[in-house]
C-alpha cells in the first residue's frame, strides 16, 4: 500500500493548542511523524532581555497558561540566585503551596481534556468543576484566576488572607474524595482500557536518551523527580512519595498523574500546618530599592541605580506539572538580564513522539498525544 503524509493540525482536536503533527502513514499504520512547532512563538526569551526582573514574572504566567505559578517559581529561583537575594522561609512555603495547588489544577485540566479525547464526556465536566475551586483559592490570595503575577524576586507579593488556610483544607478534603471518583469513572470503564492500555510505550532508557521527563518518564518505572533528586525551595523539609508506574504506556501516565495529585495534597497539608504556626514576613527585608515590592521600578530610578547592580548567573530546574523545566539567567549587571534561556519539557516530550508513535495506528494518536499533556504556550515560548 502506498504511503502518504497527513497533517494533524494546526487546527485539530488532538493537538490541544496550535501545533502540527505530520504523520506518514501506510494504510492505518504510522510509519514516521514530524512535529512542527512555532505557531505560538512569542519570543519570550527575547522580550525578557528588555525587561526588569519583576516584569518578566508577567511573561512567565503567559509561558504556560495552565501552570503559571510553577513557571513563576522556576524563574524566581534562578533570578534570586543571579541577584544574590534570599527570600524569607514563609515565602518559600507559600510558593510551594501555590506550586502544588497549580500542579493539581494542571493535572485536572489534563485529565478533563485527555479523557474527553478518548470519548468519555462526564469527566470533563467534573474536572472543570473541581479545578474551579482551586482557581477560587488563587483568586482570593493572588487576585488572578489564570495569570497571577504573584511571586516576586525576594518573596511573594502579599501574605495569605485570614482564614485562607482553612478554606484550603476544605478544598483538599473535597479533592481527595473526587480523586476516588475520577479513578472510578475511568479505571472501571472498558472503553478507557481498550483505548489506553499498551499504547505509546516508551521504556525508561529510551525516554532518558530522548530527554523525556516528568510523568512520562516516571510511568516507565523511573524514580526521577527533581523535588527529591535536587530539592529546591523547601521540598527537602516535606514528606511525599514519588509516584511511579511500570507499564510505560498511556494508562501508566494516567496512574502517575492521579497519584501525583494525591501526593500534592499531602504536601499542601504540611505547608498549611507550617504556615499556621509560623507567621512572619513574606518579603526579604534588605531588598535593593530597584527591586522594591510590590511593583517593579519605574522611570529613571532604575537607571540612576544602574551602577550598583550585582552580576551573577542563575540556574534552576523545577519539577513542573509537565516535566522538568529549566531556566538559565545571565545577569551582567544591567537593569535587565543579558540572556534568559528556558527549557520547556513539553517541547522535548512532543519531539520524542518520533520514538513512541511509529508502529501504532492513526486512531491511537489522540490518546497517546493526550497522555503527553501538551501545553503549546511553554513549548513555543
Amino acid at each position, binding site marked *: 500500500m502506498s504511503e502518504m503524509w497527513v497533517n494533524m493540525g494546526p487546527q485539530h482536536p488532538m493537538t490541544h493548542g496550535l501545533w502540527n503533527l505530520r504523520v506518514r502513514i501506510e494504510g492505518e499504520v504510522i510509519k514516521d511523524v514530524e512535529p512542527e512547532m512555532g505557531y505560538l*512563538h512569542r519570543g519570550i526569551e*527575547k522580550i525578557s532581555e528588555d525587561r526588569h526582573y519583576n516584569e518578566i514574572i508577567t511573561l512567565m504566567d503567559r509561558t504556560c497558561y495552565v501552570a503559571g505559578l510553577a513557571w513563576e517559581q522556576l524563574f524566581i529561583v534562578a533570578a534570586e540566585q543571579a541577584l544574590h537575594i534570599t527570600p524569607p522561609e514563609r515565602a518559600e512555603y507559600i510558593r510551594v503551596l501555590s506550586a502544588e495547588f497549580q500542579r493539581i489544577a494542571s493535572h485536572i485540566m489534563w485529565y478533563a481534556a485527555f479523557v474527553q479525547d478518548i470519548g468519555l464526556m462526564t469527566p470533563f465536566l467534573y474536572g472543570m468543576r473541581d479545578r474551579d475551586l482551586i482557581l477560587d483559592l488563587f483568586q482570593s490570595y493572588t487576585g488572578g484566576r489564570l495569570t497571577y503575577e504573584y511571586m516576586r524576586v525576594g518573596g511573594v507579593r502579599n501574605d495569605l488572607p485570614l482564614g485562607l488556610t482553612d478554606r484550603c483544607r476544605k478544598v483538599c478534603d473535597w479533592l481527595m474524595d473526587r480523586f476516588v471518583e475520577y479513578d472510578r469513572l475511568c479505571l472501571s470503564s472498558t472503553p478507557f482500557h481498550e483505548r489506553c492500555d499498551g499504547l505509546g510505550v516508551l521504556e525508561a532508557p529510551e525516554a532518558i536518551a530522548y530527554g523525556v521527563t516528568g510523568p512520562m518518564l516516571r510511568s516507565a518505572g523511573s524514580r526521577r523527580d527533581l523535588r527529591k533528586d535536587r530539592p529546591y525551595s523547601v521540598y527537602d523539609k516535606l514528606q511525599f512519595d514519588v509516584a511511579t508506574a511500570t507499564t510505560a504506556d498511556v494508562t501508566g501516565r494516567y496512574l502517575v498523574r492521579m497519584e501525583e495529585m494525591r501526593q500534592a495534597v499531602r504536601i499542601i497539608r504540611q505547608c498549611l500546618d507550617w504556615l499556621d504556626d509560623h507567621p512572619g514576613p513574606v518579603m526579604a527585608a534588605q531588598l535593593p530599592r530597584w527591586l522594591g515590592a510590590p511593583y517593579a521600578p519605574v522611570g529613571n530610578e532604575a537607571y540612576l541605580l544602574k551602577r550598583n547592580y550585582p552580576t551573577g548567573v542563575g540556574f534552576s530546574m523545577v519539577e513542573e506539572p509537565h516535566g522538568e523545566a529549566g531556566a538559565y539567567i545571565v545577569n551582567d549587571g544591567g537593569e535587565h538580564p543579558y540572556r534568559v534561556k528556558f*527549557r520547556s519539557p513539553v517541547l522535548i516530550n512532543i519531539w520524542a513522539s518520533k*520514538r513512541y508513535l511509529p508502529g501504532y495506528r492513526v486512531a491511537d494518536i489522540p490518546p497517546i498525544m493526550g497522555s503527553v499533556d501538551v501545553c503549546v504556550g511553554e513549548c513555543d515560548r
Partner: protein
Amino acid sequence: MKTNELAARLTSKFGEGILGVDEFPGLLGRVRFDAAIASKLFHTFRDDLGFAHLTMVGAIDWIDHREVFYTLWSDADRVYVMLSANLPSDAPTIASAVPVWPSANAHEREAWDLVGIRFEGHPDLRRIFMPEGYAYHPLLRSFKIHEPEDLEVKVRSE
C-alpha cells in the same frame, strides 16, 4: 565528585582542549572547552562520567563571540554540570551532540533558529519556531525589538 576532581580527570584526558573548569552556583561546575574536542568530550561525559541526561542546549550572543552551553545531569552523582564553548561570530560551528544524546535534536534546532549556531552532523538542522526562510536569528543582540520598521517578516517565496 568534586569540581577540582572533575577538572583533574578532564585535563589529564584532554590536555589543552579543556580551557578551564569554573565554580558555578548550584552545579558541579562549568567546563569551558575548545570546540574542536566537542564530540570526544560528549562521549566522555556520557560513557565515562555517567551524565546520561542532556537537559538543555542553548547559546548566548556575546557580540564579539557566541557561547554554546550544554547542561547535563548524572543520576549517580545527582549533580548538574555545564559545558560551554566559545565560537567565533563569523563562523559559529560546533559538532552536533545528537549522536550522543538524541534529545539534543530539538535543542540544537532551537539554538540554530534563534542564535544562528551551526551544528555539524545534525540530521535535520531546520528552523523550529520561526518560518523557514526567515532572514534573522532573533536572539542575536543585533536584532532589536523596538524598531518595528526592521521587523517586516521576510520570507523567501518558493
